[in-house]
Structures are given as structure tokens and as C-alpha cells.
């Protein structure tokens, strides 16, 4: 997400490295797909007019099992009020509330708009990017 956010700067050096950034996108999205979308049940399901908001690893959150604290004696204990506050705080973090695919798409569209349209973007920024990678990303973004 941090790397992707750099596209907001419209900095030429960043745009020159778009291929490297797209490589990261591809690796991350491929890994999510390999994990069957990483579907999980959120700790605090969000209700929308259409029903419960479904989530996937594209909005990353740790497994509930990892949240259970264990003692030195091998047992487990319920999370403290501080643990719950911390968990709630982390759940509101952009890392856990932003859909990664949409985030990438939005930043790509923004970079295209900043540079003067899709054609200009393709000519200026994608000229050094492997065509196969661009095709693969187009497939991912569909």
C-alpha cells in the first residue's frame, strides 16, 4: 500500500519504477489468489444496506486464532480490555479496512489522470514495463 501510495506524488522517478511496483502488485495479488482469496470472517462484521460486508485477504486481518493469548503453562486466557482496545484500533487501520485491489486500481487511475490520460500514461510510464506483466495486471484488474 505504501509503494502504491507513492503514485499519488506523480513523481517522475516513481513513475519510472512503475514496473517494479507492478511486480509487487502482481506477487501480492497472486498470493492472495493462491490462498483461495483468503476469505475469513471479520471480528466485527460490518452491516451495509445490502447485508453483511464480506471480506477477504484483500483487506488483511490476522486469524482469530492468533489473537488468543497463551500463558506459559500452555493454557489460553481471554483478551484484556487493553487487548480489545488494541485490536479495535488495529482493525480501524487502513491496512485492515482498505481493499487492496481497489486501492491499486484507484491509484493507477489517478496516475493516468495526472499524466494526461491512458494513452499518454502507456507511452510515458509503461514503455519500460514488461508487456507480459501489463497483460497479467490487466487480467487481475478485470
Amino acid at each position, binding site marked *: *500500500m*505504501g*509503494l502504491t*501510495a*507513492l*503514485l*499519488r*506524488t506523480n*513523481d517522475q*522517478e*516513481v513513475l*519510472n*519504477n512503475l514496473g*517494479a*511496483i507492478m*511486480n*509487487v502488485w502482481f*506477487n*501480492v495479488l497472486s*498470493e*492472495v489468489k493462491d490462498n483461495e482469496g*483468503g476469505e475469513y470472517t471479520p471480528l466485527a462484521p460490518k452491516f451495509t444496506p445490502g447485508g453483511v460486508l464480506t471480506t477477504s*485477504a*484483500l483487506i*488483511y486481518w*490476522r486469524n482469530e486464532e492468533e489473537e488468543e493469548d497463551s500463558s506459559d503453562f500452555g493454557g489460553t486466557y481471554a483478551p484484556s480490555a487493553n487487548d480489545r482496545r488494541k485490536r479495535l484500533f*488495529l482493525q480501524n*487501520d*487502513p*491496512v*485492515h479496512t482498505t481493499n*487492496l485491489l481497489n486501492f491499486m486500481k484507484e491509484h493507477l487511475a489517478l496516475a493516468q489522470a495526472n499524466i494526461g490520460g491512458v494513452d499518454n500514461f502507456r507511452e510515458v510510464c509503461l514503455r519500460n514495463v514488461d508487456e507480459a506483466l501489463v497483460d497479467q495486471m490487466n487480467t487481475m484488474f478485470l
Partner: protein
Amino acid sequence: MIVTSQNMNILARLALENPDLLLHFLRSVDNSPDIVSRFVDKWAGQKVSPRQSSFH
């Protein structure tokens, strides 16, 4: 500039909040003309996954 996984997490957070400030920071600590390119290249070259790319 030495970029470790620990300070990379902080820089990633800064990038998310204010990417212009991150670039300004990079250029202020290292005046080589390709600092941003090298930084992005190094960052992108790290093995990342959704899990590893989180900030925790």
C-alpha cells in the same frame, strides 16, 4: 541510507499518509539524484505478501 525492515515499516506508513513528505525526506537525507529510484527499487525488491506487508 540503510533501510531495514523495521524502518521500512515506518517509511511505508509515512508513504501511506503523505507520500510527498516521504520523497522530500528521502531527498533531504540523501542528495544522490536517483535516491527515489533506488529506494523504490529496493522496496519493491523485498519479498512481500499481504501478511508481511502489514505494519505489525
